[in-house]
Structure formats: structure tokens, C-alpha cells
């Protein structure tokens, strides 16, 4: 009996330790997301994106509470094609008589969920295959990268249209098809990043002590690519949302669900523009725009936070400040005085800052106008001299 009890206890402690580990990793992931949100909040564009996403998520989660009607409920349908009123803020649809405002709010559910779930599946697939290709190398790398090469040259949207025709138009099929073709770019980026980290000495030090491949992938490589993952998830989610709206518009979305793309398709097919029901087109359009816009803001903000070269106030802002403060004032002052202005100054001052040199090299800033002004000034001065002589 005692031995059995001992075994039980051992088993229990083992399970407890595993649970503890899972809990710790969950906490670590949450911590990472929280620090990521804090970083985004400091960034202007990121903050805009975060606020809109929060709003959309709120709408999606509490749709039954916020929306005045339930578009899925046949009994809650009103007269078809009503104009906006206090009862129906955005009127009702021409074909079914559903409340458009409620559909707009319920539509956030399908758009966001498809975008986010596909984005997550792509992130998991892309990171797993990218890390495997980059870290293990050899024939694993060769096989994965050849698959990527093949998938990259296949045009996705026509293929998705064909696949939905064959496999049906449920959400699962749409998510799977988009994910199956969307992971390639991410896998490539992650692979190259992993190959950089793999050769770092801290990885060699860990290997020397006898760390397993899993340990190195989990503790060293995954954290290093996590920011990249979040960024690309936001951007691909935005792309998937547009693609899903496009599919629905073509009549290939889930026919049972209320989605923004389907609202657009219904409005178009029922001739909403003909009846002057512009709100039934504008409403889902704004919904799609906000969702894609906010996700793009977050993705781009993340890219700027991650990539120091793209940090705001780098080239343009600094050069313009420089011009405003020093150069332009002097230009105007000298022009008022009518005194001489050295032609070199324009090129000189802009050449002094590295950003200025970059801009000159890119041809973004051409000092030709200023030089022309000074040249004219000098010319006129010379003429005066001639006259006086």
C-alpha cells in the first residue's frame, strides 16, 4: 500500500511541476503581450490602432448587448429597405429587412475572428517551419524552402476561389486555405533571423552545457523572433480581413454568417445605389476600413519600434527642423538685406547632417531652387556693380 501511495505522490508532484511550468510560460507570454502593448501605447500610430482595435473587439464581444436587434433572428426583421430612423439607425437591408446597424456590429465578429484566427495559424505555421528550416538546416531546410518557393508563385486569391468551390464555404475551410498559402513569407523571414541567432555565441555556450535543441529554440530563438511574429500577425490579419471581405463579396463567404463583405455583396446585388441607399454600402465599408486600418497601424508601428532605422523623426523631421531653424531664417534675412548669400551654404548645411546627405543621395531634397535664388542675387548685384562702374 505504501509503495502505491508513494507512486501516487510522485505522480502528483510530477503533474504539479508540469502544471507549474505551463503556468509560468503562460504568464511569460502574457507579460510579453503586456510589455508589447505598453510599447505600442507610446507610439502615436500604435495608440490609434490599439484604440480602434479595442473598440472593434468590444463591439464583437458584446454584440448581443450593444446591437438593438439580432440579425440572425428572423422574427426581428423589419420592413425591407427602410431609411435611417431612430428605430433603425442605419435603416434596414433591401433584400431581407435586417437592421443594418446591428449587422454592422455583428459583422465585426466574423471579420475579426477570421482575420485573427488565420493570422495566428499563419504565425504558428510560419514560425514553426521557419525555425525548423533555419535551426535544423540540412534536408529539412531544403524541403521546406522548396515548398515555400512553389507556394510563393501560386496566386492565392484565384486558388482560394477554386478551393472554396470544391471544399465548401465554411469558416474552417477559409481559414485553412488562407493559412496554407499565407505562411510562406513569414517562414522565410524567420528562417533568416534564426540563422543569424543560431551562430551567436550564447547559443553555442548553451549547447556546450548540453542544452537540448528544444531548449534553445524555446528560450533563445523564439523570444528573439517574437516581436517579428507579432508584427507580421497584425499585418497578415489585416490582409486576410480584406481577402475575406472580397470572398464574401463574390458570394464565396460563409452564407449563414453576417459579415461586412456579405453586406456589401447584398447591397450591390439588390441595387442599393439605385435606390439611393448609400448608407447600406458606406456602413460595411467603414467597418472593413477601420479593421484593416487599425491592424495596419499596429503592424507598422511595431515595425518602426523594432527597426531603429525607421524611427520617427529620423530623416525628414530633422532636416526640416535644421532648415527652419538655421538655414531658412538666414536665407530670408539675407534676402531682405539684399546682401550676398553664398551659394554653397545650401549644400553645405544639408551636407553636414547625415540625414541631409542621405536625402541628397536619394534625391528627395534638391537645393537647386535656393541655389538659383542666390545665383540670381549675385547676378543682380554684379549688374549693379557694372552700372555703378
Amino acid at each position, binding site marked *: 500500500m505504501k509503495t502505491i501511495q508513494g507512486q501516487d505522490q510522485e505522480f502528483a508532484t510530477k503533474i504539479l511541476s508540469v502544471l507549474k511550468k505551463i503556468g509560468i510560460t503562460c504568464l511569460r507570454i502574457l507579460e510579453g503581450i503586456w510589455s508589447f502593448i505598453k510599447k505600442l501605447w507610446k507610439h502615436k500610430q500604435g495608440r490609434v490602432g490599439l484604440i480602434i482595435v479595442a473598440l472593434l473587439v468590444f463591439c464583437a464581444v458584446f454584440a448581443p448587448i450593444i446591437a438593438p436587434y439580432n440579425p440572425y433572428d428572423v422574427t426581428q426583421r423589419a420592413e425591407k429597405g427602410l431609411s435611417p430612423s431612430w428605430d433603425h439607425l442605419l435603416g434596414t437591408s433591401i433584400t431581407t429587412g435586417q437592421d443594418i446597424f446591428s449587422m454592422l456590429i455583428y459583422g465585426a465578429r466574423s471579420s475579426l475572428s477570421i482575420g485573427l484566427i488565420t493570422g495566428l495559424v499563419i504565425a504558428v505555421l510560419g514560425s514553426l517551419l521557419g525555425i525548423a528550416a533555419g535551426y535544423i538546416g540540412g534536408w529539412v531546410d531544403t524541403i521546406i524552402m522548396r515548398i515555400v518557393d512553389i507556394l510563393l508563385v501560386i496566386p492565392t486569391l484565384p486558388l482560394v476561389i477554386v478551393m472554396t468551390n470544391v471544399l465548401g464555404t465554411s469558416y474552417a475551410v477559409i481559414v485553412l486555405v488562407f493559412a496554407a498559402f499565407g505562411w510562406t513569407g513569414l517562414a522565410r523571414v524567420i528562417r533568416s533571423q534564426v540563422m543569424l541567432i543560431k551562430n*551567436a555565441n*550564447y547559443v553555442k*555556450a548553451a*549547447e*556546450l*552545457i*548540453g542544452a537540448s535543441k528544444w531548449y534553445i529554440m524555446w528560450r533563445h530563438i523564439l523570444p528573439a523572433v517574437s516581436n517579428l511574429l507579432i508584427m507580421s500577425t497584425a499585418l497578415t490579419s489585416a490582409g486576410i480581413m480584406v481577402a475575406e471581405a472580397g470572398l464574401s463579396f463574390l458570394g464565396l463567404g460563409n452564407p449563414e454568417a453576417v459579415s461586412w463583405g456579405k453586406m456589401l455583396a447584398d447591397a450591390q446585388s439588390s441595387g442599393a445605389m439605385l435606390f439611393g441607399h448609400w448608407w447600406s454600402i458606406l456602413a460595411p465599408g467603414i467597418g472593413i476600413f477601420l479593421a484593416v486600418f487599425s491592424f495596419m497601424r499596429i503592424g507598422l508601428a511595431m515595425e518602426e519600434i523594432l527597426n531603429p532605422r525607421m524611427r520617427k523623426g529620423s530623416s525628414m523631421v530633422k532636416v526640416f527642423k535644421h532648415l527652419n531653424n538655421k538655414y531658412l531664417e538666414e536665407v530670408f534675412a539675407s534676402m531682405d538685406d539684399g546682401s550676398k548669400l553664398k551659394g554653397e551654404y545650401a549644400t553645405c548645411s544639408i551636407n553636414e547632417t547625415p540625414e541631409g546627405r542621405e536625402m541628397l543621395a536619394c534625391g528627395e531634397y534638391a537645393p537647386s531652387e535656393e541655389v538659383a535664388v542666390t545665383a540670381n542675387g549675385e547676378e543682380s548685384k554684379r549688374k549693379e556693380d557694372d552700372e555703378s562702374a
Partner: protein
Amino acid sequence: MRKNEKPLIKLENVSVSFPVKNDFPFQKKRYVRAVTDVSMEIYPGETFGLVGESGCGKSTLANTTLGIQKVDSGKIFFEDQELTAMDKKQLKAARRSMQMIFQDPFSSLNPRFSVYEIISEPLRIVGGYTREQMRELVGNMLQEVGLSAGDMDRFPSDFSGGQKQRIGIARALILKPKYLVCDEPVSALDVSVHAQILNLLMDLQDKYHITYLFISHNLAVVKRICSRVLVMYFGKVMEYGDVDKIFANPVHPYTQALMSAIFDTDIDHKHERVRLKGEVPSPINPPIGCRFCGRCPQELDRCKEGDPPLLEIEEDHYVACFRHGIVEAETDG
């Protein structure tokens, strides 16, 4: 005197080569011979210098002693156990007592880890320590390497190059290794902190009785801290033995050239600078005969024909050069 002791690490005729990618299909497979037929012994408690120019196989040789690099032929012994005959599990166990310090302190510390996480990583990989134990060990180790226990929760970016190297040393020493490979530990640092790091390494050696394999191309440093040295050129041993004997009487022309390149602070003392001609030959097609052929200022006809054997010319001083016998004959006559 060393002869009576048991060596900690013993290499017997170790050769390592790497396959080269073919330029054309169906080409005969070619190899870069990184290390050819190297035998050496490292005794416990000593600092063993490994000297040679870039790409001559120093790091590969160091990796073979750690058991990370597979060898083509030859045997490696660590404390009488044969590393080359071990399976993965045994190797892992044997490596517990071996560690490494890297040249570049910037890439050897994960920028996302705190100092505590970096130094305790070996403990976590080995397992069996509680968090409190690890924090205490890490704190003690930080003080040992000249940092304070309060630095534990800071990140590598907060530290200077020398301090980062100290963190790297702390990580290497946390498992109390017997054998430590120092792969040019000071060459990436400012000259002003060279001496500090070297002194720290020597103090730690005295305290824990660690054996160092010290890779360097700075002979002045080797002369200061090493007790025995191996001069490598192009994957082969040129001269090997006691530091004082080799520095007092460099026999091989390559060693002489290296010695003459030591930067001397004594301005009045003018020494002859031996300048080597030519380039390092391609490692895929090494020259026939002595590896130093074509660059050697004292080349003989014999050198092109065969490999000179490694001969013991005095106690604990080995040289692989045909000239040696001739020099002796000249001085005798």
C-alpha cells in the same frame, strides 16, 4: 617534471577536415584540412597557450578538445576517458566539467536575458537547483568576478565590454569546471582592460585550480600567462613545449617570425624583424612537404619533399623543422 603528472587532456594524432561544396557536379569531393595530425598534452592546473594566425585551426582544435567537433582520426582523452569513443549521453556528462569563454563579449550574452538568467543558465540546464540556491550562487559568482550581486537583474546592454566579459567568465565558472577554453578572451576588448581580465583569469585559476586552454595571437600575453605553448601553422604543429624554453630559443622559422612581431615598448632595443613573404596557401591544396614551404625565409630543398617530423630537441621543447639538425651541425662545426 611535467612528465610524471597525468595529463588532463591528451590528443593523439588528431585530424579534422571539413567538406567543401563542389563547384561542378560529379566533381571529386574536396576537403579543407583544418587540423592535421596534432598530438598534445595539457596538464592539470596549467595555462596552455595556442598560438597561430587566423584560420590556422586554433578554434577547431579547441572545439575538438571540448568534444563539439567530430574528428576524422585520432583520439582525445579527458581525464583518462576517451572523448572520441563516447556516446551523446556520456559526452554531455563529461562536458559538465568543461567550459568556454568567447572572444566577442557582445554576441556571447543574450541581450534579452538578465544577468541572473545568463549566469544561471548552466544551472537551469543541468537542473536540480531551487531559485534561492541559484540566486545565491549567481550572487557569489558575480562578486568573484569583480561585479556586485546587485547587478543580477540588469541587462547586458547596461555593461561595458570588460564587464560583459566578466559576466561571460561568471557563466563559464558557475558549474565549477576543471577545464576552460579561452578563445581570445581579451582581443575584442580595449587595451586598458586586457590586464584586468587576464589578472582575473589568473586569480580564478589559483583559487579553483582550473586548467586553461588559452587561444591567442598575442604572444606577449601568452608569454605572460601561459606555462606551455603550441605554435600552429596551417593545421600543423610547428613548435610545442615550455613557454620559457620556446621564447628563449625559438627554433622554427615561423616561431621566430611571430616573436619578431611582438610589439616592444623598449625603443632603444632594436630587434631584427623577420618578414614573411607570400600568402597563406589554399587549405584545399596544401603544399607538398612542410606546410611552411614557400613562405619560409630559411627554406631548404628537403622541405619540399617531405613533412618534417616533430622532434624533441630538449626537455619539453618539440620542433617540426628540418633546419634544426643543420643549425646544430653548423654550431658544432
